[in-house]
Each structure stands twice: as C-alpha cells, then as structure tokens.
C-alpha cells in the first residue's frame, strides 16, 4: 500500500475474520482519510460487507485492531464507544428502516435517544434532512412499506445522517436504483460530503459511482486490499481482476 496516511479517520490493521474454517479477511490493512469518499470494490463474496460490518462492530474478528476517530474499538470504554457510534451513520444494503415507525419517527429515532431537544426542533431537522436527501415533506408520515426502493435508500440515508455524523458507511447505496436515480444518489452523496464535511466509506459495485463520486478507491481480493488509490491508479494497475474490472466492456461504456 502507498505510504501511511496521517491521522486517518479509520485505521484498520491486520484484521482477520473467519466464519468456521473459511477465512474471509486475512490480515487486512486499510486507512480512510478525513473528508474523503472512499469507494470500496471487489468481486461478489469477497467480504466487502463483512469488512464494513467488522468495522462497525457487528462481526467479531479473530485478530487485528480497528481505530475509528483515533479510538481503538477493542480497548475503549462503553462511553467512548457510545461516543464513536454517535459520530457515525450506517446505511444498510436493504435500508433496515424500522418497519413499524413512520419515516419521520425513523429519522428522529437516534435524535430522541441521544439528544435532548424539543419535538419542534426534531420535526424541523427531519424536514431539513428529508429536503437534503431530495424527498418531499409529505413522505414523512408514510411507513417504510409504502415507499419505493429508491425512497427507502434516501430515507435510510436521512436516518444515517440524522445526528450529523462525521463518518457514514454506505453499503451498496445505488444497488437496485435506476441509472438516473443512482446518478442522483451519487450527486447527493457528493453534495452532502461537501456541505456537511462528511467522510464516506462506500461499498459499491457501480462503476458510475466510482467515477463520479469517489475520491479514492480500495479493492478487496483474497481477504486483503490488493490496491488503493485514485481511479487513474486503478486503470494503470496490472492486476488481472482490476484490468478486467476497469477495462471491461461496461467500464469502457462508462468512461466514454
């Protein structure tokens, strides 16, 4: 990997994750810079979601260390950890909205738990978040089952952003969206990153997203990061999978 990054927001060192006897991640190292949008790619089943879930603490690791905001998540106290969790937002692949709460209640859920603010302010902030993710205010009183796939992703993003986190994890945010919707979503992530100064960790399969939204790309293969760098670095790489990925028919179509 190219030189150490100073003061990274996420520092992953020698992570090993194993399910039974299959080793999914094998001594993986990764740094994420403050304020960047990192696109994370790799073949299906390579463990992209596993790494995301390991960083946010949903999958136990066998070895290695993870630091987020300079806090080592293994040795941190409960309150430190709570503090870190309050500063990140997660967008799950399927949205993971609470199905028995309305959109408004979904977005207000973290605020209600972490902040002591008036209902009026929560309602106003909810409207602001909905506007930011490009949804109409009328959506607020609907239930998740009454939303389309694209709307679910947007609401999930609004919920991930509800506490104004410094870092968001997006797990395949544009999968299942039409190309125009996906393009809008990339644009949205870019805008939000600019306005809110976010750091974005984005697992994606979408070449368009990589080209238009990401500052840097990391590639996962064989349980390790096989390459990390700008899109130009990726195209120049000689790695067979990368060559196929970035010089395949679809990649050429996106670039032209």
């Amino acid at each position, binding site marked *: 990997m190219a030189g150490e990054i100073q003061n990274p927001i996420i520092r992953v060192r020698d992570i090993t994750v194993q399910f039974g006897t299959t080793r999914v991640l094998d001594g993986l190292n990764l740094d994420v810079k403050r304020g960047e949008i990192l696109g994370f790619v790799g073949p299906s089943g390579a463990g992209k979601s596993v790494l995301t879930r390991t960083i946010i603490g949903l999958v136990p690791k066998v070895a290695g260390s993870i630091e987020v905001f300079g806090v080592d998540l293994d040795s941190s106290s409960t309150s430190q950890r709570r503090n870190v969790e309050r500063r990140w937002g997660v967008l799950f692949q399927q949205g993971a909205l609470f199905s028995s709460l309305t959109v408004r209640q979904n977005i207000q859920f973290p605020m209600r738990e972490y902040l*002591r603010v008036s209902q009026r*302010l929560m309602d106003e*902030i909810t409207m602001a978040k909905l506007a930011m993710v490009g949804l109409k205010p009328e959506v607020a009183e609907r239930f998740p089952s009454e939303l389309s796939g694209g709307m679910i992703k947007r609401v999930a993003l609004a919920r991930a952003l509800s506490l104004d986190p410094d870092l968001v994890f997006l797990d395949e945010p544009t999968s299942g969206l039409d190309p125009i919707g996906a393009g809008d979503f990339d644009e949205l992530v870019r805008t939000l990153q600019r306005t*809110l100064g976010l750091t974005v960790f984005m697992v994606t399969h979408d070449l368009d997203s990589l080209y238009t939204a990401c500052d840097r790309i990391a590639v996962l293969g064989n349980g390790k990061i096989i390459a990390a760098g700008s899109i130009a670095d990726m195209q120049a790489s000689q790695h067979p999978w990368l060559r196929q990925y970035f010089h395949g028919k679809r990649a050429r179509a996106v670039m032209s």
Partner: protein
Amino acid sequence: MNSDPKLERIAKGNALALCATGTWTASFAPVLERMVADAEKLAGSPQSIFIDVSEVAKLDTFGAWLIERLRRSLTQGAVEAQIAGLSANYSSLVDEVRRVRATPVVETSTITITGMLEQIGRTVAGVGGTVAGLIDMLGAVLAAGFRVLVHPRSFRLTSTVHHMEQVCWRAVPIIVLITFLIGCIIAQQGIFHFRRFGADIFVVDMLGVLVLREIGVLLVAIMVAGRSGSAYTAELGSMKMREEIDALRTMGFDPIEVLVLPRMLALVLALPILAFLGAMAALYGGGLVAWLYGGVDPEAFLLRLRDAISIDHFIVGIVKAPVMAAVIGIVACVEGLAVQGSAESLGQHTTASVVKGIFFVIVMDGVFAIFFASIGM
C-alpha cells in the same frame, strides 16, 4: 476543539446585531435552542438586523437550522435579517437549510365519542369479515386438496413430512410432559376431595372420562395452537413481507397448494396422534398419583378404568382432534397471509392467530359437546 456556544447582542446604533460564537452542533442543541428562543424575543424596530456567524467554530445541520430559524423569526415586515460573516465551508449548508419549508404538518388524532363508536362498529363488522375469511380459506384449501386428489403428482410430500416433523414429532416431549402433569393434578385433586366421602376409587372414573373426552384433546389443541399455529402465522407472514408469496404466484404456483395445504395436512394428521399420546400420558400420570398418593394399586386402577370407560369415550375425544386441527390451521394461515409490511403487523397477526385459534377450539369443543349429548354418546 469544542467550546460552549454563545449568542450575544452587540450594540450597533439602530441596528440589531447578534454575534454567534462557539460550537453550533447537535451536541449543544438544547442550549442552542434556548438561546435562540431568547434571542427571538429581542423585538424593537431596528433598521437592520445582522446575525454574525464569523466566530462560529463548528456548524452542522442543527446549528445551521437554528440560525436560519432565528433569521426567519427576526425578519419582520420590510426589514430582513441578514446572516453575516459566513465562511465558505458552511455557506452551502446554510443555503441548504434555507430551502427547507417551515414547520411540518403533524396530524394529531383526538379521541372523540363518535370516533370510539366508529371503532366499535368497525370491530363488530370485522368479526363478520373474520368468519368470511375463515370460510374462504376453508374453501380454498378444500379446492386445492381436490386438485391434488385429481393430480396426485402435485402433492408436496416432502413439505408435508417436514411439517409433520415440526408439529408432531418435535412436539411429543412437551405435550407428553404437560399432559402427564395435568393427569397427576386431576388425580390428586380428585382423591383429596373424594376421600371425604370414602369414594377414593371414583377418581378413576373421573380421570378416565375427563381425560379421554375433554381434557386430553382440548389441552393438546390449545398447546398446538400456541406452538404450531403461531409458527405457521409467523412463517407465512414473513414470507408475505418479503414478497416470497408474490414470487410463488408469478411463477404459476398456488400459495394455498404449495404452502397452506401441506401445513394443514400435517396439522390434521398430527393432532389426533398428539391427542392420543397426551391422553395416555395423562392417564399414566393420574394412575401414578392414584397409586402413590391415593393407595389405589395399578391392578385395581386398570380394573376400575375398564369398567368406567368405554370405547365411546375415546372416540368422542379423538374425533374432535382433526376438526380442531383444521380450525387452528385455517386461522393460522389466514392470519399469516393477512400480514402487512411491518414487524408490528407480524406481531399483531401472530397474537391474533393464537388467540383466535384457542377461541375457536373451545367453541368447537362446545359444539361437539352439544352434538354428542344429543346423539347420546
């Protein structure tokens, strides 16, 4: 890095100038909200209004919105409040919140007399709907069963066997244990009270008739409604939520035939078996207590039992079992297929499945009691 936020008024002749400093972020939101509320009261008729944010160390959506809220409420008449000293970093955020439409419309529901009456009316009308739904499902299951009879190849044997294992084989230990204990309790109570009349031995009559005619099958049916009825509802309900049932339909399969029929059949076969095992366990438990507690030795118990009960008692009990199974299965499947998109709905329908299942089992038991009484069994 974080410093307490402040909002101070600076005197500037005819102008109203407010200077915001410190960290304007979500963590300080309660303080910020109070300060902004206080500042909003600063009325008067200034010629110009400025909110100076050049000293703000950190701003997020909460802070930006509160500044925007202050700006909006200070804007009176022709004098528009201005935000001054906005750094380039935050200007896009402030622009973003400026586009937000003011207060949201929140509907509040109030409880009124008419509303309550309406609710009662709807519930009553819903009862009719429930019964219609059950009959509908019964018809659909019978139709599917008939189709399977005509085309036996479309019968799902594997699925039926799988459900048999779930609702019958795996239920045996708990059913046997509970009915055994109930048998013990009935015998103990019987002996305790009959002893006063010196009629200890009649406990065998009571135990035999009660267990074979009523308790055995009723208790087992209630347990099966709780154990397997709820499982059916939850399974079908989550399949409904994840559009799996729609997927089946689009592939040209009938969900009733694929999902409901094997479950119903498994239940209808399982309940008589479980009821029989339950009755035997209860008799065994009762006999054990009669021997150890009442001093009725096993030989006397069996002799008395032979006199006290006839095959009619057994038939009366066991005939009810498949009918109760069908009722439980139909209720569970109707509720499962009625689940809507949310987790809450799944919970409600699973509860309804068990409650209605047990209710209908008891109703059926009453109907059977009247029927057998009138034919003299």
